[in-house]
């Protein structure tokens, strides 16, 4: 079975390799600081103990007050997986560093995240609208996209049998 590292283990490994790189931790995830993100991931990839050589999944998430980018990273030899995150509170022009210098395969997933959330990845070789066309209005997977007149928000509030837009209050994700 693949061993899933807890947030504390991940934070300890990241702090050991790059001191001061961890922003905060939760039970299963480790939030890294954007300034040292590329440096930390390079160290985690090349270190013999962590050996996180394979970026399995990269995607964005919108929590109203912040954007998160989620990185699920594997090690083949050690058979372990770690969940790292990086967040930004900026909504108008969110910018995070690109991890393409660390993993080549990240370019396609970062491109998709940019397309859906409008998060600009600093250092990405060719950031374009990939699935949608140039000039598409808005960023579809943001929670405030398609908010209807009168403040109706996407998402279900109750089991109504039929999926339909509901009145506010807006569902907010709180920890």
């Amino acid at each position: 079975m693949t061993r899933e590292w807890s947030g504390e283990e991940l934070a300890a490994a990241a702090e050991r390799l790059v001191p001061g790189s961890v922003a905060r931790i939760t039970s299963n995830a480790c939030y890294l600081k954007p300034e040292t993100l590329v440096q930390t991931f390079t160290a985690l990839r090349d270190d013999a103990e962590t050996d996180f050589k394979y970026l399995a999944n990269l995607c964005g998430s919108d929590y109203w007050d912040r954007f998160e980018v989620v990185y699920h990273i594997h090690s083949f030899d050690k058979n372990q997986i770690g969940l790292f995150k990086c967040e930004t509170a900026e909504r108008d022009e969110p910018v995070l560093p690109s991890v393409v210098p660390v993993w080549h395969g990240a370019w396609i997933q970062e491109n998709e995240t940019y397309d859906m959330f409008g998060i600009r990845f600093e250092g990405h070789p060719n950031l374009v609208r990939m699935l949608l066309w140039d000039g598409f209005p808005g960023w579809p997977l943001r929670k405030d996209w398609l908010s209807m007149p009168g403040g109706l928000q996407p998402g279900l509030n109750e089991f109504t049998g039929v999926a339909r837009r509901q009145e506010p209050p807006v569902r907010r994700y709180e920890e």
Partner: protein
Amino acid sequence: MTSPIKSEPFVINIGPQHPSTHGVFRMKVTVDGEQVVDAEMVIGYLHRSMEKLAEERTYTQNIPFTDRTDYLSSMSNNLGYCLAVEKLAGIDVPERGQAIRVIMAELQRIASHFMALGAFTNDTGAWQTPVMWCLREREKVLDLFEMTSGARLTCNYMRIGGVAFDIPKDFEPATRKLIKTLPGFIDELEGLLSGNEIFLARTKNVAVIPPDLAVNASLAGPMLRGSGIAWDLRKADPYCGYEKYDFAIPIGYQGDSYDRFIVRVEELRQSVKIIEQALDGLPGGPHSTQVPLALRPPKGEAYARVEGPRGELGYYVVSDEGPSPYRFHIRPPSLINLSVLKEMTVGGSVADAIVALGSVDIVVGEIDR
């Protein structure tokens, strides 16, 4: 390359309506003479924004969406999503449900690989005959799906907590009959193609991916194993009781198109082996646990992955205790396998670019979602 004839770069659009692109996929190729100097993909023709739609539907209502992402392997997609929600909500699946899931996932792998192999041989110039043979065998698998779930392509058979209904009583004899004939057909197909000089000339040393690049570019499935990395989630992180079955992980050594072809052929044999063992040890009991229709998983997030026919098929689901997922993300293996498109095609000829794309085995419904 020096040539007395002067040439200048020229852009060709392969697709979106072209048989070699296996769907509405456009490859923008810059050629200099016969040589490809740049390749770029243009996608999004089939984009339906399923991740957004899923945020407005309940957990159970989202299962049919997963059929329609990768329409050639709907069972694997159902399975990945159900595993993610089960992980989130802490639901256990009874043993019979797990065995049925394994049988269905492996039958799906056989159906999907037949389609991949047939289309690939079509791209290399073995025009129509192998693909028709493969489709004939694939039909037999789809008949089994129709018998079980009522649908051939978009099966919508898995449920959170198990499968939708038990297998019919004709299913087991029909499956045993099929898997008895399949190894002979696989040998025949491999014998026809792997010794064929034209096929070898078209695929050997074409679109080579070195192992370092394969890992660094997040490739998965036969693309990764063709480059010599023995990584299979069924072995490394067993789900649905895969640890009980005896099978091997086929790998290639060169990382070229031919190796990816051979890995797929060998995986067919391993899938037949798994189905045989699963049918022999099919336990009794319920096929599903009772899960409330109004499912509200506890707050949290889960990432579950299965080894789909195209590689690591992951589902990332975030719950805020609401009736619908807060965030629903699919890790699409065929999209991420395309991240080496440029590395595979640049430097080769246009005809090799077609073979390279065919060896990736893309499904455009999954790329665009």
